[in-house]
């Protein structure tokens, strides 16, 4: 759906309230990025987004849901890292029907 991210980047898609908060549907961010750093990275760019949006949202990487770990609680070898070319999405609570 979004065009390919430039080299060294991944795409992040913002749906519903995430899109309203960031005023965009998609952007490219530098890769690689450890998943546990994702919310900090977004909070730096969009102050307040963690409490308003991210805390009630789910996250997918390449259409698969992932658990976003606490910054400190990652054991070695268990680290999930967002890679160049990945498609990450912020999924707020859904409202189909």
């Amino acid at each position, binding site marked *: *759906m*979004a065009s390919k991210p430039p080299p060294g980047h991944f795409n992040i*898609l913002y*749906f*519903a*309230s995430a*899109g*309203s908060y960031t*005023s965009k*549907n998609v952007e490219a961010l530098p890769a690689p990025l450890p998943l546990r750093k994702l919310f900090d990275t977004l909070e730096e760019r969009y102050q307040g987004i963690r409490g*308003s*949006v991210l805390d009630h949202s789910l996250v*997918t990487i390449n*259409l698969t849901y992932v658990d976003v770990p606490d910054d400190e609680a990652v054991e070695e070898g268990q680290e999930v890292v967002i890679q160049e070319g990945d498609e990450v*999405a912020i*999924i*707020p*609570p*859904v*409202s*189909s*029907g």
Partner: protein
Amino acid sequence: MATTTIDAPQTQDSSLSQEGCYVALTSSPLNIPSITDRVRSPQAGAIVLFAGTTRDSFDNKPVKELQYTAYAPLALRTMLDIAAALKAKHGLKGIAMVHRLGVVPVGEESILIAVSSPHRQAAWRAGEEALEECKARVEVWKREEFEAGEGVWRANRDGARGERVD
């Protein structure tokens, strides 16, 4: 005032299907005869159809229009998961679910679900479960624009009021 636009690629029609299951997203008005035909079967004694329509108010506040957006590839995948699971669980002959995207005028269908089965009980149950599963899981979002000017992204979970967008 922040406005949320829906990218054209998100409103393009798309669908997935596999053995007796059909799911789709479309920006066109929904068509009841065509979804019914998708599940029609000589082995079925019942077709149950659910049509969800857009309401003109929320908490007594008049709603001007509704707009749906989707993470299309993921929403289709989730819809197909739901369809396949219910087909197996209830022994359905067919199940089809179509969700409309983009602006849906008040009073029009936003979702259609059709299921067919040899006997009516299974079809009634599967139809209800399909809708509840969709509302809980499918990656589609509804935005209500109120007559008063503001809009909110609705959340199905626990009847949440959604986040106000100014």
